[in-house]
Protein backbone atom coordinates (compact mmCIF):
# COMPACT_ATOMS: atom_id res chain seq x y z
CA UNK A 1 0.00 0.00 0.00
CA UNK A 2 1.17 3.49 -0.80
CA UNK A 3 2.71 5.25 2.13
CA UNK A 4 2.80 8.99 2.76
CA UNK A 5 5.54 10.45 4.94
CA UNK A 6 4.97 13.22 7.46
CA UNK A 7 7.90 15.43 8.34
CA UNK A 8 7.45 15.85 12.09
CA UNK A 9 8.52 19.04 13.76
CA UNK A 10 9.59 19.30 17.38
CA UNK A 11 9.92 22.22 19.70
CA UNK A 12 11.95 21.90 22.88
CA UNK A 13 11.80 18.11 22.83
CA UNK A 14 8.04 17.88 22.20
CA UNK A 15 6.07 17.18 19.03
CA UNK A 16 4.44 20.44 17.94
CA UNK A 17 0.67 20.45 18.00
CA UNK A 18 0.43 21.41 14.32
CA UNK A 19 1.68 17.92 13.40
CA UNK A 20 -1.59 16.40 14.63
CA UNK A 21 -3.67 18.22 12.02
CA UNK A 22 -1.18 17.09 9.39
CA UNK A 23 -1.52 13.46 10.53
CA UNK A 24 -5.30 13.83 10.43
CA UNK A 25 -5.15 15.07 6.83
CA UNK A 26 -3.12 12.06 5.71
CA UNK A 27 -5.17 9.56 7.71
CA UNK A 28 -8.36 10.77 6.02
CA UNK A 29 -6.83 9.97 2.63
CA UNK A 30 -6.84 6.32 3.71
CA UNK A 31 -3.15 5.96 2.91
CA UNK A 32 -0.62 4.45 5.29
CA UNK A 33 1.38 6.99 7.24
CA UNK A 34 4.96 7.08 8.22
CA UNK A 35 6.36 9.83 10.42
CA UNK A 36 9.91 11.04 9.80
CA UNK A 37 11.66 12.31 12.91
CA UNK A 38 15.12 13.76 12.39
CA UNK A 39 17.50 13.71 15.38
CA UNK A 40 14.67 13.99 17.92
CA UNK A 41 13.08 11.41 20.16
CA UNK A 42 11.24 8.74 18.17
CA UNK A 43 9.75 7.47 21.44
CA UNK A 44 8.20 10.87 22.12
CA UNK A 45 6.98 11.03 18.51
CA UNK A 46 5.45 7.58 18.77
CA UNK A 47 3.62 8.43 21.99
CA UNK A 48 2.39 11.74 20.59
CA UNK A 49 1.38 10.50 17.14
CA UNK A 50 -0.19 7.09 17.78
CA UNK A 51 -3.43 8.76 18.95
CA UNK A 52 -3.68 10.39 15.51
CA UNK A 53 -3.34 7.21 13.48
CA UNK A 54 0.36 7.17 12.63
CA UNK A 55 1.42 3.56 12.10
CA UNK A 56 5.13 3.98 11.66
CA UNK A 57 7.80 6.26 13.07
CA UNK A 58 11.14 6.43 11.30
CA UNK A 59 13.99 7.85 13.37
CA UNK A 60 16.30 9.49 10.88
CA UNK A 61 19.74 10.04 12.34
CA UNK A 62 21.67 12.70 10.53
CA UNK A 63 25.23 13.68 11.33
CA UNK A 64 25.87 11.23 14.16
CA UNK A 65 24.94 11.44 17.87
CA UNK A 66 24.38 14.93 19.20
CA UNK A 67 24.63 16.50 15.76
CA UNK A 68 23.11 19.94 15.61
CA UNK A 69 20.52 21.28 13.15
CA UNK A 70 21.79 21.43 9.59
CA UNK A 71 19.04 22.00 7.00
CA UNK A 72 21.18 21.05 3.99
CA UNK A 73 22.24 17.77 5.55
CA UNK A 74 18.79 17.01 6.96
CA UNK A 75 17.24 17.58 3.55
CA UNK A 76 19.65 15.08 1.99
CA UNK A 77 18.88 12.58 4.76
CA UNK A 78 15.12 12.98 4.31
CA UNK A 79 15.38 12.55 0.53
CA UNK A 80 17.47 9.41 1.09
CA UNK A 81 14.92 8.07 3.59
CA UNK A 82 12.12 8.69 1.07
CA UNK A 83 14.04 6.58 -1.38
CA UNK A 84 14.75 3.86 1.18
CA UNK A 85 11.11 3.57 2.31
CA UNK A 86 9.58 4.01 -1.14
CA UNK A 87 7.89 7.32 -0.28
CA UNK A 88 6.62 9.44 -3.15
CA UNK A 89 4.54 11.93 -1.15
CA UNK A 90 5.88 14.01 1.72
CA UNK A 91 3.86 16.41 3.84
CA UNK A 92 5.44 18.98 6.15
CA UNK A 93 4.51 22.24 7.85
CA UNK A 94 4.91 25.75 6.48
CA UNK A 95 6.88 26.86 9.54
CA UNK A 96 10.31 28.50 9.43
CA UNK A 97 11.81 25.01 9.68
CA UNK A 98 9.55 23.70 6.91
CA UNK A 99 10.46 26.67 4.73
CA UNK A 100 14.10 25.74 5.13
CA UNK A 101 13.72 21.98 4.60
CA UNK A 102 10.89 21.30 2.14
CA UNK A 103 12.25 23.46 -0.72
CA UNK A 104 15.70 21.91 -0.28
CA UNK A 105 14.21 18.41 -0.55
CA UNK A 106 12.12 19.45 -3.57
CA UNK A 107 15.14 21.02 -5.27
CA UNK A 108 17.23 17.95 -4.67
CA UNK A 109 14.57 15.59 -6.07
CA UNK A 110 13.52 18.10 -8.76
CA UNK A 111 10.04 17.46 -7.38
CA UNK A 112 7.02 19.77 -7.39
CA UNK A 113 6.30 21.51 -4.10
CA UNK A 114 3.48 23.75 -2.93
CA UNK A 115 3.91 25.58 0.35
CA UNK A 116 1.15 26.96 2.55
CA UNK A 117 -1.51 24.50 1.36
CA UNK A 118 -5.00 24.97 2.75
CA UNK A 119 -6.16 21.59 1.41
CA UNK A 120 -4.29 18.62 -0.03
CA UNK A 121 -5.77 15.81 -2.14
CA UNK A 122 -3.20 13.01 -1.89
CA UNK A 123 -5.04 10.82 -4.41
CA UNK A 124 -4.93 13.30 -7.23
CA UNK A 125 -1.92 15.40 -6.16
CA UNK A 126 -4.03 18.54 -6.10
CA UNK A 127 -3.91 21.31 -3.54
CA UNK A 128 -5.65 24.53 -2.68
CA UNK A 129 -3.62 27.52 -1.64
CA UNK A 130 -4.02 31.26 -1.64
CA UNK A 131 -2.38 33.39 -4.32
CA UNK A 132 -2.02 37.14 -4.83
CA UNK A 133 -2.01 38.25 -1.22
CA UNK A 134 -4.95 36.11 -0.24
CA UNK A 135 -7.15 37.71 -2.89
CA UNK A 136 -7.58 34.46 -4.82
CA UNK A 137 -7.64 30.76 -4.07
CA UNK A 138 -5.83 28.53 -6.54
CA UNK A 139 -6.37 24.84 -7.20
CA UNK A 140 -3.04 23.48 -8.31
CA UNK A 141 -2.03 20.13 -9.77
CA UNK A 142 1.42 18.72 -9.14
CA UNK A 143 3.09 16.42 -11.67
CA UNK A 144 6.29 14.48 -11.24
CA UNK A 145 7.74 11.41 -9.57
CA UNK A 146 7.66 12.81 -6.04
CA UNK A 147 5.24 15.29 -4.50
CA UNK A 148 5.95 17.59 -1.61
CA UNK A 149 3.45 19.66 0.32
CA UNK A 150 3.84 22.30 3.00
CA UNK A 151 0.64 22.57 5.01
CA UNK A 152 -0.48 25.87 6.53
CA UNK A 153 -0.57 25.66 10.34
CA UNK A 154 -4.08 24.96 11.68
CA UNK A 155 -5.38 24.23 8.14
CA UNK A 156 -6.75 20.89 9.29
CA UNK A 157 -8.38 20.32 12.66
CA UNK A 158 -6.74 17.40 14.46
CA UNK A 159 -8.93 14.40 15.15
CA UNK A 160 -7.95 11.34 17.14
CA UNK A 161 -7.92 7.81 15.68
CA UNK A 162 -5.58 5.77 17.88
CA UNK A 163 -3.40 2.96 16.52
CA UNK A 164 -0.18 1.32 17.62
CA UNK A 165 2.93 2.38 15.75
CA UNK A 166 6.15 0.54 14.99
CA UNK A 167 9.52 2.21 15.15
CA UNK A 168 12.22 2.00 12.50
CA UNK A 169 15.45 3.86 12.04
CA UNK A 170 17.52 5.22 9.21
CA UNK A 171 21.05 6.58 9.31
CA UNK A 172 22.17 9.07 6.73
CA UNK A 173 25.43 8.51 4.95
CA UNK A 174 28.10 11.12 5.50
CA UNK A 175 29.05 13.12 2.45
CA UNK A 176 30.65 16.46 1.68
CA UNK A 177 29.01 19.49 3.27
CA UNK A 178 28.40 21.06 -0.15
CA UNK A 179 30.03 24.28 1.06
CA UNK A 180 27.34 24.76 3.70
CA UNK A 181 28.06 24.77 7.40
CA UNK A 182 25.87 25.80 10.33
CA UNK A 183 28.25 27.43 12.79
CA UNK A 184 25.72 27.99 15.54
CA UNK A 185 22.07 28.55 16.31
CA UNK A 186 21.37 31.45 18.62
CA UNK A 187 18.16 32.24 20.39
CA UNK A 188 17.21 35.46 22.11
CA UNK A 189 14.68 33.53 24.17
CA UNK A 190 11.74 35.06 22.35
CA UNK A 191 8.14 34.08 23.07
CA UNK A 192 7.49 30.38 23.30
CA UNK A 193 4.58 30.19 20.90
CA UNK A 194 4.97 30.64 17.18
CA UNK A 195 2.32 32.92 15.66
CA UNK A 196 1.61 30.57 12.76
CA UNK A 197 0.56 27.85 15.20
CA UNK A 198 -1.41 29.90 17.71
CA UNK A 199 -5.12 29.19 18.21
CA UNK A 200 -5.82 32.76 19.19
CA UNK A 201 -3.91 35.86 18.12
CA UNK A 202 -4.34 39.31 19.62
CA UNK A 203 -2.68 41.88 17.39
CA UNK A 204 -1.96 45.54 17.78
CA UNK A 205 -1.38 48.26 15.20
CA UNK A 206 -0.68 51.96 15.12
CA UNK A 207 -3.57 52.45 17.53
CA UNK A 208 -1.46 50.90 20.32
CA UNK A 209 0.54 54.15 20.37
CA UNK A 210 3.69 52.62 21.91
CA UNK A 211 5.61 49.42 22.43
CA UNK A 212 4.91 49.52 26.16
CA UNK A 213 1.18 49.45 25.49
CA UNK A 214 1.54 46.02 23.88
CA UNK A 215 1.60 44.84 27.48
CA UNK A 216 -2.21 45.21 27.35
CA UNK A 217 -2.26 42.57 24.60
CA UNK A 218 0.22 40.25 26.32
CA UNK A 219 -1.82 40.49 29.52
CA UNK A 220 -4.91 39.18 27.70
CA UNK A 221 -2.98 36.59 25.69
CA UNK A 222 -1.55 35.09 28.85
CA UNK A 223 -5.07 34.34 30.04
CA UNK A 224 -6.02 32.39 26.92
CA UNK A 225 -4.57 28.96 26.28
CA UNK A 226 -2.65 28.86 22.98
CA UNK A 227 -2.77 32.62 22.44
CA UNK A 228 0.01 34.75 20.97
CA UNK A 229 0.47 38.45 20.24
CA UNK A 230 0.89 39.81 16.72
CA UNK A 231 1.28 43.23 15.14
CA UNK A 232 0.76 45.27 12.00
CA UNK A 233 3.70 46.43 9.95
CA UNK A 234 3.34 49.96 11.24
CA UNK A 235 3.86 48.74 14.81
CA UNK A 236 6.97 46.88 13.63
CA UNK A 237 8.33 49.72 11.50
CA UNK A 238 7.94 52.12 14.41
CA UNK A 239 10.19 49.81 16.42
CA UNK A 240 7.52 48.96 18.98
CA UNK A 241 7.77 45.18 18.53
CA UNK A 242 10.12 42.82 16.65
CA UNK A 243 9.54 41.91 13.01
CA UNK A 244 8.74 38.30 13.85
CA UNK A 245 5.44 39.54 15.30
CA UNK A 246 4.35 41.10 12.00
CA UNK A 247 1.25 39.55 10.47
CA UNK A 248 0.59 40.10 6.79
CA UNK A 249 1.81 39.97 3.27
CA UNK A 250 5.43 40.55 4.24
CA UNK A 251 5.14 39.04 7.68
CA UNK A 252 3.73 35.81 9.06
CA UNK A 253 0.66 34.25 7.47
CA UNK A 254 -1.58 33.05 10.25
CA UNK A 255 -4.63 30.89 10.50
CA UNK A 256 -5.88 30.99 14.10
CA UNK A 257 -9.36 30.12 15.34
CA UNK A 258 -9.75 33.70 16.52
CA UNK A 259 -7.91 36.85 15.45
CA UNK A 260 -8.45 39.97 17.54
CA UNK A 261 -7.24 43.15 15.80
CA UNK A 262 -6.73 46.14 18.09
CA UNK A 263 -6.03 49.53 16.54
CA UNK A 264 -5.43 48.02 13.11
CA UNK A 265 -7.11 49.62 10.09
CA UNK A 266 -7.26 46.45 7.98
CA UNK A 267 -5.06 47.18 4.95
CA UNK A 268 -5.03 44.59 2.15
CA UNK A 269 -1.48 43.72 3.08
CA UNK A 270 -2.48 43.01 6.65
CA UNK A 271 -5.47 40.95 5.52
CA UNK A 272 -3.17 38.94 3.25
CA UNK A 273 -1.75 37.40 6.39
CA UNK A 274 -4.85 36.77 8.48
CA UNK A 275 -7.92 36.59 6.28
CA UNK A 276 -8.24 32.82 6.63
CA UNK A 277 -8.70 33.15 10.40
CA UNK A 278 -11.72 31.29 11.76
CA UNK A 279 -13.16 34.39 13.41
CA UNK A 280 -12.02 38.00 13.27
CA UNK A 281 -12.85 40.47 16.04
CA UNK A 282 -11.90 44.13 15.57
CA UNK A 283 -11.56 46.99 18.02
CA UNK A 284 -11.28 50.37 16.36
CA UNK A 285 -12.24 53.96 17.18
CA UNK A 286 -12.93 54.76 13.53
CA UNK A 287 -16.36 53.58 12.33
CA UNK A 288 -15.03 53.75 8.75
CA UNK A 289 -11.96 51.57 9.29
CA UNK A 290 -11.78 48.94 6.53
CA UNK A 291 -11.43 46.11 9.00
CA UNK A 292 -14.93 46.66 10.36
CA UNK A 293 -16.43 45.62 7.03
CA UNK A 294 -14.40 42.41 6.85
CA UNK A 295 -14.71 40.87 10.28
CA UNK A 296 -17.19 38.82 12.27
CA UNK A 297 -17.53 41.08 15.32
CA UNK A 298 -16.43 44.63 15.85
CA UNK A 299 -16.70 47.36 18.40
CA UNK A 300 -16.25 51.01 17.58
CA UNK A 301 -14.44 51.69 20.82
CA UNK A 302 -11.18 52.79 22.32
CA UNK A 303 -8.87 49.83 22.84
CA UNK A 304 -7.44 51.50 25.95
CA UNK A 305 -10.89 51.26 27.54
CA UNK A 306 -11.80 47.77 26.33
CA UNK A 307 -8.56 45.82 26.81
CA UNK A 308 -8.26 46.34 30.59
CA UNK A 309 -11.91 45.27 30.88
CA UNK A 310 -11.24 42.24 28.71
CA UNK A 311 -8.34 41.28 30.95
CA UNK A 312 -10.70 41.47 33.93
CA UNK A 313 -13.30 39.31 32.15
CA UNK A 314 -10.72 36.71 31.14
CA UNK A 315 -9.30 36.58 34.66
CA UNK A 316 -12.82 36.07 36.00
CA UNK A 317 -13.68 33.33 33.52
CA UNK A 318 -10.38 31.62 34.28
CA UNK A 319 -11.04 31.50 37.99
CA UNK A 320 -14.62 30.34 37.45
CA UNK A 321 -13.32 27.48 35.30
CA UNK A 322 -11.13 26.23 38.11
Amino acid sequence: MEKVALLIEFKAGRVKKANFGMATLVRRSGKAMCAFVVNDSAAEAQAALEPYGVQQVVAIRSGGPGAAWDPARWARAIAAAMDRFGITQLVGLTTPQGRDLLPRIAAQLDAPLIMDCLEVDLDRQMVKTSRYSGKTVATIRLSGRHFIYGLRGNAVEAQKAPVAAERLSFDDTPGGDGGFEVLETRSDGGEALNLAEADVIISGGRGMKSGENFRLLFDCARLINGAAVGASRVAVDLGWVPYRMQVGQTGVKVNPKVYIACGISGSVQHFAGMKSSGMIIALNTDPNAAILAHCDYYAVADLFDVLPELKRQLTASMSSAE
Partner: protein
Amino acid sequence: MSLFKIYVCVKHVPDSAATITVLGSDRIDANVTFLINPYDEHALTEAARIRQQHAPAEVVAVCLGPSAAENTLRSAMAMGADRSILVVTPQDHDSIFTARALKSAIAQDGEPGIILTGKEAIDTEGMQTLFRLAANFGLPAATNVVKLQLQDAAALVECEKESGAVDVIRMGLPCVVGAGKGLNTPRYPTFPEIVKSRKKEVKKIDVAALGIARPASRVEIIELKPAVENRAPRALTGSAAEIARQIAAILKEEARVI
Protein backbone atom coordinates in the same frame (compact mmCIF):
# COMPACT_ATOMS: atom_id res chain seq x y z
CA MET B 1 41.55 41.55 -10.60
CA SER B 2 38.57 40.05 -12.35
CA LEU B 3 35.14 41.53 -11.98
CA PHE B 4 33.09 40.10 -9.09
CA LYS B 5 29.65 39.46 -10.55
CA ILE B 6 26.68 39.84 -8.26
CA TYR B 7 23.48 38.53 -9.81
CA VAL B 8 20.15 39.57 -8.35
CA CYS B 9 17.04 37.70 -9.48
CA VAL B 10 13.98 39.92 -9.37
CA LYS B 11 10.33 39.21 -10.04
CA HIS B 12 7.74 41.46 -11.65
CA VAL B 13 4.67 41.11 -9.38
CA PRO B 14 1.27 42.82 -9.08
CA ASP B 15 1.24 45.65 -6.56
CA SER B 16 0.06 44.17 -3.28
CA ALA B 17 -2.60 46.89 -3.09
CA ALA B 18 -3.95 46.15 -6.59
CA THR B 19 -7.45 44.80 -7.08
CA ILE B 20 -7.02 41.35 -8.56
CA THR B 21 -9.62 40.22 -11.07
CA VAL B 22 -9.73 36.62 -12.23
CA LEU B 23 -10.09 36.16 -15.99
CA GLY B 24 -11.45 32.91 -17.34
CA SER B 25 -10.74 30.36 -14.66
CA ASP B 26 -6.99 30.30 -14.29
CA ARG B 27 -5.34 33.69 -14.66
CA ILE B 28 -5.58 37.26 -13.49
CA ASP B 29 -6.22 40.45 -15.38
CA ALA B 30 -2.65 41.68 -15.83
CA ASN B 31 -3.89 45.20 -16.43
CA VAL B 32 -2.84 46.35 -12.95
CA THR B 33 0.27 48.04 -11.59
CA PHE B 34 3.23 45.69 -11.39
CA LEU B 35 6.22 46.34 -9.18
CA ILE B 36 9.45 44.76 -8.17
CA ASN B 37 8.83 42.03 -5.56
CA PRO B 38 9.42 43.69 -2.14
CA TYR B 39 11.91 41.09 -0.85
CA ASP B 40 13.96 41.55 -4.02
CA GLU B 41 14.45 45.19 -3.04
CA HIS B 42 16.33 43.98 0.02
CA ALA B 43 18.44 41.73 -2.24
CA LEU B 44 19.26 44.68 -4.53
CA THR B 45 20.11 47.00 -1.66
CA GLU B 46 22.46 44.36 -0.28
CA ALA B 47 24.02 43.77 -3.71
CA ALA B 48 24.80 47.47 -4.04
CA ARG B 49 26.44 47.38 -0.61
CA ILE B 50 28.55 44.35 -1.50
CA ARG B 51 29.67 46.01 -4.73
CA GLN B 52 31.24 48.80 -2.66
CA GLN B 53 33.19 46.33 -0.55
CA HIS B 54 34.16 43.97 -3.28
CA ALA B 55 35.36 46.27 -6.04
CA PRO B 56 35.77 45.73 -8.88
CA ALA B 57 32.26 44.32 -8.96
CA GLU B 58 29.08 44.69 -10.93
CA VAL B 59 25.44 44.05 -10.09
CA VAL B 60 23.31 42.37 -12.75
CA ALA B 61 19.54 42.11 -12.27
CA VAL B 62 17.92 39.10 -13.94
CA CYS B 63 14.21 38.56 -14.50
CA LEU B 64 12.01 36.01 -16.24
CA GLY B 65 8.83 37.79 -17.21
CA PRO B 66 6.75 39.53 -19.86
CA SER B 67 8.20 42.44 -21.88
CA ALA B 68 6.49 44.79 -19.42
CA ALA B 69 8.90 43.49 -16.77
CA GLU B 70 11.41 45.90 -18.30
CA ASN B 71 9.89 48.46 -15.90
CA THR B 72 10.76 46.30 -12.95
CA LEU B 73 14.32 45.98 -14.24
CA ARG B 74 14.48 49.77 -14.66
CA SER B 75 13.52 50.07 -10.96
CA ALA B 76 16.18 47.50 -10.12
CA MET B 77 18.75 49.56 -12.00
CA ALA B 78 17.58 52.76 -10.33
CA MET B 79 18.14 50.97 -7.02
CA GLY B 80 21.67 50.06 -7.98
CA ALA B 81 21.95 47.30 -10.59
CA ASP B 82 24.48 48.23 -13.31
CA ARG B 83 22.69 46.37 -16.08
CA SER B 84 20.02 43.74 -16.45
CA ILE B 85 18.84 40.72 -18.35
CA LEU B 86 15.19 40.10 -19.18
CA VAL B 87 14.25 36.60 -20.28
CA VAL B 88 11.07 37.41 -22.14
CA THR B 89 8.20 34.99 -21.88
CA PRO B 90 4.55 35.39 -22.79
CA GLN B 91 3.29 33.16 -19.97
CA ASP B 92 3.62 32.49 -16.25
CA HIS B 93 5.98 29.72 -15.22
CA ASP B 94 6.32 27.59 -12.11
CA SER B 95 9.45 27.73 -9.97
CA ILE B 96 10.87 24.56 -11.53
CA PHE B 97 10.99 26.12 -14.99
CA THR B 98 11.85 29.59 -13.66
CA ALA B 99 14.93 28.31 -11.84
CA ARG B 100 16.11 26.56 -15.01
CA ALA B 101 15.64 29.72 -17.07
CA LEU B 102 17.42 31.92 -14.50
CA LYS B 103 20.29 29.45 -14.27
CA SER B 104 20.66 29.36 -18.02
CA ALA B 105 20.51 33.16 -18.41
CA ILE B 106 23.07 33.72 -15.65
CA ALA B 107 25.44 30.99 -16.87
CA GLN B 108 25.30 32.46 -20.38
CA ASP B 109 26.20 35.89 -19.05
CA GLY B 110 29.08 35.12 -16.74
CA GLU B 111 30.39 33.38 -13.68
CA PRO B 112 28.49 34.41 -10.58
CA GLY B 113 30.48 35.54 -7.53
CA ILE B 114 27.24 35.45 -5.54
CA ILE B 115 23.52 35.31 -6.36
CA LEU B 116 20.91 37.15 -4.33
CA THR B 117 17.14 37.13 -4.49
CA GLY B 118 14.14 37.68 -2.25
CA LYS B 119 13.15 34.84 0.07
CA GLU B 120 9.78 34.57 -1.68
CA ALA B 121 7.60 36.34 -4.22
CA ILE B 122 4.47 37.97 -2.86
CA ASP B 123 2.23 36.87 -5.75
CA THR B 124 2.76 33.11 -5.90
CA GLU B 125 4.48 32.72 -2.52
CA GLY B 126 6.37 29.67 -3.73
CA MET B 127 9.35 30.09 -1.33
CA GLN B 128 11.49 27.74 -3.39
CA THR B 129 12.98 29.28 -6.55
CA LEU B 130 16.21 30.21 -4.80
CA PHE B 131 16.79 26.63 -3.66
CA ARG B 132 16.10 25.25 -7.12
CA LEU B 133 18.41 27.81 -8.69
CA ALA B 134 21.13 26.82 -6.22
CA ALA B 135 20.58 23.12 -6.95
CA ASN B 136 20.78 23.78 -10.70
CA PHE B 137 24.17 25.40 -10.18
CA GLY B 138 25.23 22.92 -7.49
CA LEU B 139 25.66 25.76 -5.00
CA PRO B 140 24.78 26.14 -1.31
CA ALA B 141 21.79 28.31 -0.40
CA ALA B 142 20.29 29.96 2.65
CA THR B 143 16.92 31.65 3.07
CA ASN B 144 15.48 34.46 5.17
CA VAL B 145 18.93 35.96 5.50
CA VAL B 146 19.00 38.98 7.79
CA LYS B 147 22.75 39.52 7.89
CA LEU B 148 25.37 38.96 5.21
CA GLN B 149 29.09 39.35 5.47
CA LEU B 150 31.51 38.42 2.70
CA GLN B 151 34.82 36.90 3.62
CA ASP B 152 37.57 35.76 1.25
CA ALA B 153 35.93 32.75 -0.27
CA ALA B 154 32.84 32.49 1.88
CA ALA B 155 29.67 34.25 2.89
CA LEU B 156 28.79 34.38 6.56
CA VAL B 157 25.02 34.72 6.91
CA GLU B 158 22.45 34.86 9.68
CA CYS B 159 19.08 33.36 8.92
CA GLU B 160 16.06 34.22 11.00
CA LYS B 161 14.02 31.32 12.29
CA GLU B 162 11.10 31.33 14.66
CA SER B 163 10.83 33.03 18.02
CA GLY B 164 13.85 35.19 17.43
CA ALA B 165 16.34 32.37 16.86
CA VAL B 166 18.97 32.71 14.13
CA ASP B 167 21.22 30.21 12.39
CA VAL B 168 24.73 31.43 11.71
CA ILE B 169 25.86 29.75 8.50
CA ARG B 170 29.03 29.79 6.46
CA MET B 171 28.65 29.11 2.75
CA GLY B 172 31.44 28.81 0.26
CA LEU B 173 31.29 31.28 -2.63
CA PRO B 174 29.55 31.35 -4.96
CA CYS B 175 26.30 30.76 -3.11
CA VAL B 176 22.64 31.77 -3.27
CA VAL B 177 21.23 34.13 -0.65
CA GLY B 178 17.48 34.58 -0.06
CA ALA B 179 16.96 38.05 1.38
CA GLY B 180 14.63 38.45 4.34
CA LYS B 181 13.07 41.67 5.48
CA GLY B 182 15.55 42.19 8.30
CA LEU B 183 18.54 42.29 5.94
CA ASN B 184 18.50 46.06 5.40
CA THR B 185 16.26 49.01 4.73
CA PRO B 186 15.77 49.31 0.98
CA ARG B 187 17.31 52.45 -0.35
CA TYR B 188 14.87 54.08 -2.72
CA PRO B 189 16.36 55.84 -5.71
CA THR B 190 16.78 59.57 -6.09
CA PHE B 191 15.45 61.30 -9.20
CA PRO B 192 18.92 61.47 -10.90
CA GLU B 193 19.32 57.73 -10.29
CA ILE B 194 15.97 57.09 -11.94
CA VAL B 195 17.02 59.18 -14.95
CA LYS B 196 20.35 57.40 -15.12
CA SER B 197 18.68 53.98 -14.98
CA ARG B 198 16.86 54.76 -18.21
CA LYS B 199 20.16 54.69 -20.04
CA LYS B 200 21.37 51.43 -18.56
CA GLU B 201 21.26 48.25 -20.59
CA VAL B 202 18.37 45.77 -20.51
CA LYS B 203 19.45 42.77 -22.53
CA LYS B 204 16.44 40.87 -23.79
CA ILE B 205 16.57 37.16 -24.48
CA ASP B 206 13.61 35.21 -25.77
CA VAL B 207 12.87 32.32 -23.41
CA ALA B 208 12.73 29.95 -26.40
CA ALA B 209 16.35 30.85 -27.23
CA LEU B 210 17.44 29.27 -23.94
CA GLY B 211 16.24 25.90 -25.27
CA ILE B 212 14.87 24.62 -21.96
CA ALA B 213 13.01 21.34 -22.32
CA ARG B 214 9.65 21.15 -20.59
CA PRO B 215 10.44 19.68 -17.17
CA ALA B 216 8.75 16.40 -16.25
CA SER B 217 8.02 17.91 -12.84
CA ARG B 218 5.70 20.86 -12.75
CA VAL B 219 2.79 22.56 -11.06
CA GLU B 220 -0.18 23.94 -12.95
CA ILE B 221 -3.02 26.15 -11.89
CA ILE B 222 -6.19 24.27 -12.63
CA GLU B 223 -8.47 26.90 -11.28
CA LEU B 224 -8.17 30.36 -9.81
CA LYS B 225 -11.09 31.88 -7.93
CA PRO B 226 -11.53 35.13 -6.09
CA ALA B 227 -11.31 34.46 -2.37
CA VAL B 228 -14.86 34.54 -1.12
CA GLU B 229 -15.59 36.45 1.97
CA ASN B 230 -18.52 35.19 3.90
CA ARG B 231 -18.30 37.25 7.00
CA ALA B 232 -21.26 39.26 8.16
CA PRO B 233 -19.89 41.83 10.58
CA ARG B 234 -21.92 42.28 13.75
CA ALA B 235 -21.44 45.25 16.05
CA LEU B 236 -20.76 44.89 19.75
CA THR B 237 -22.09 47.91 21.56
CA GLY B 238 -22.38 49.30 25.03
CA SER B 239 -19.79 50.44 27.56
CA ALA B 240 -16.22 49.18 27.43
CA ALA B 241 -17.09 46.68 30.16
CA GLU B 242 -20.11 45.45 28.22
CA ILE B 243 -18.10 45.07 25.04
CA ALA B 244 -15.41 43.14 26.92
CA ARG B 245 -18.06 40.88 28.45
CA GLN B 246 -19.49 40.12 25.01
CA ILE B 247 -16.04 39.35 23.59
CA ALA B 248 -15.29 36.98 26.47
CA ALA B 249 -18.65 35.27 25.91
CA ILE B 250 -17.95 34.88 22.18
CA LEU B 251 -14.50 33.41 22.90
CA LYS B 252 -16.05 30.97 25.33
CA GLU B 253 -19.33 29.93 23.74
CA GLU B 254 -18.91 30.45 20.01
CA ALA B 255 -15.19 30.07 19.37
CA ARG B 256 -14.64 27.77 22.37
CA VAL B 257 -11.10 28.90 22.93
CA ILE B 258 -11.41 29.66 26.63
